[in-house]
């Protein structure tokens, strides 16, 4: 009895592989329809972004707690950030989101040239962002504001020694115990922007791969899910920055 079942399904198996229905070449075997494939992959991407929210959520929680506890230190710390570069970077990222959206549109409307161009622009803007970030990081390194590496409190206990910032904000000197907590501010600054930058680097690497495949025409035949999903990722990383920028750079301006 069971034997017959085996035999039957075995026989069916022979025929199964030759009898596939018509479907686009980019449809994976295990999906019944292309709609199912697109549905499943974009749902997966949204779930992954949920994971990412939880990941950054831990950092934001830590930031909010300590900001509440050590407000003056966080204000003084944020005054050290370069608002010009921060704003520039925000603009760069928002523009890159626009070019990314253009890319998705080009893929959907099967414009190969437009797609490659948009992706290249997105990659370029991503690299500009990372470049500006590294300028900012090197400023912090010069001023010894990197936690754990000869961290210097001088800008906070004696703000006048740091004329560039002092002329702008006229910060009062912080007491030593509060000044020490600026190290935590910079710790969180590096952790949060560092994790964000890591996401940017991964994004840029994937962009490189996308450009390579787009040039070969892989994404302008109707197979847009990969470009779409990467677009979601890129916008998400952008949104994280949209939260980081005010929290780290702007929110203490009135302090």
């Amino acid at each position: 009895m069971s034997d017959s079942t085996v035999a039957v399904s075995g026989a069916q198996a022979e025929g199964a592989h030759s009898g596939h229905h018509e479907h686009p070449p980019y449809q994976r075997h295990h999906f019944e329809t292309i709609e199912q494939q697109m549905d499943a992959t974009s749902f997966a991407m949204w779930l992954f972004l949920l994971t990412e929210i939880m990941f950054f959520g831990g950092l934001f929680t830590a930031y909010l707690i300590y900001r509440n506890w050590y407000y003056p230190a966080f204000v003084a710390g944020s005054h050290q950030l370069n608002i010009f570069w921060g704003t520039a970077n925000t603009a760069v990222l928002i523009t890159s989101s626009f070019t990314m959206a253009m890319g998705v549109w080009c893929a959907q409307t099967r414009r190969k040239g437009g797609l490659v161009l948009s992706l290249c622009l997105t990659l370029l803007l991503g690299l500009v962002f990372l470049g500006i970030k590294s300028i900012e990081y090197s400023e912090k390194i010069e001023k010894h504001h990197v936690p754990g590496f000869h961290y210097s409190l001088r800008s906070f206990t004696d703000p006048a020694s740091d004329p560039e910032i002092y002329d702008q904000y006229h910060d009062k000197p912080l007491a030593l115990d509060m000044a020490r907590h600026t190290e935590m501010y910079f710790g969180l600054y590096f952790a949060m922007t560092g994790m964000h930058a890591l996401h940017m680097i991964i994004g840029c690497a994937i962009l490189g791969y996308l450009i390579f495949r787009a040039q070969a025409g892989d994404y302008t035949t109707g197979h847009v899910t990969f470009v779409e999903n990467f677009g979601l990722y890129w916008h998400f990383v952008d949104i994280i920055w949209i939260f980081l920028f005010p929290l780290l750079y702007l929110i203490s301006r009135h302090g």
Partner: protein
Amino acid sequence: MDHISQVLWQFLEKWLTNFSLYPPEASKIAPQMDALYFFMVLVSLIGLTIVILLVTGFSILYSKKRHPVAVQIEGSTLLEATWTIIPLGLFLIMFVWGALIYFRVYTPPANAMNIYVVGKQWMWKAEHPGGQHEINALHVPTGRPIQLTLISQDVFHSFSIPAFRVKREAIPGRYTSVWFEATKTGTYHLFCTQYCGTNHSAMIGDIVVQTPDEYKKWLQGSTSGMSLAQNGERLFASLSCSACHNGRADARGPALAGVYGSKLTLTNGQSVSVDEAYLREAILNPSEHVTQGYSPIMPTYQGQISEDGVISLVEYIKNLNSNDRVEQTLTTTTLLPESEGKAAAVGTSTGQTSTKQGMVKQ
């Protein structure tokens, strides 16, 4: 064979002489906690018995031999409700009962005698108000509520006395507290139960419960000649705290007499009540704890003073108004000074400043 049976015999003998199912009840809270514990054991046993009876009963009654064809049953809302509500009700009883005990264990009575305990890798240091220090041991009298104020100098530790059914983590950077009232004299285990590194399992000691008379004798026999408050007084002078906190009209810092237990308004508008934790914070992170009307000029003492030193200072400030807590300082025979001015005078006149280094780095 002979050899083996001997080993076995020793083993059995050990078992019979040492076997017990629960530790001695040596504190006031222990029987209360055991009552809940045995209630829960009882409920668990009943629950387990029901499950075992159901499973074995059905297995026998409805084995394939006896019951070759199964009868399909969807389920039963009534039964679902039963086994949702009854366990929930029982769990809620446990929750309320447990919470009552929890609050009792962690809410010390006002008249409790305070003993400080500092945990560090890998030892416990207990400091009695009278200045007696103990390492990996704690002497306490029966019939008197004892509050332990715990802090760690390095990693998390946990102060556990199974015979008293109490336990509290000692955490770096903040005070925690627990209290008990010992009822039976004897020596009991003290364990560090939070994993704290290489010699975690050596961070053990003895809790020695004595009658009040014996305890008094022990206190007298092991006095270091100076109470915690007196020690704090010396520190207060040697760290030049009295330069500002001297109670004079033109003082740059607020007067500290009677500050313990009072309510303060800080410069940031926050209202705080002054307890041990607040005093500790105010010494180590003064800029966030500036009393209204004063300027933030106090330097931080973080890194310059050990946890033991902070404890002495806290104890000194606590006792600055000679309220009833001073009387608990059993061996302190000399009255503590009433004000800082006097304190400074005592501090300098006895020439304690010369021992500054030794005191700070104890």
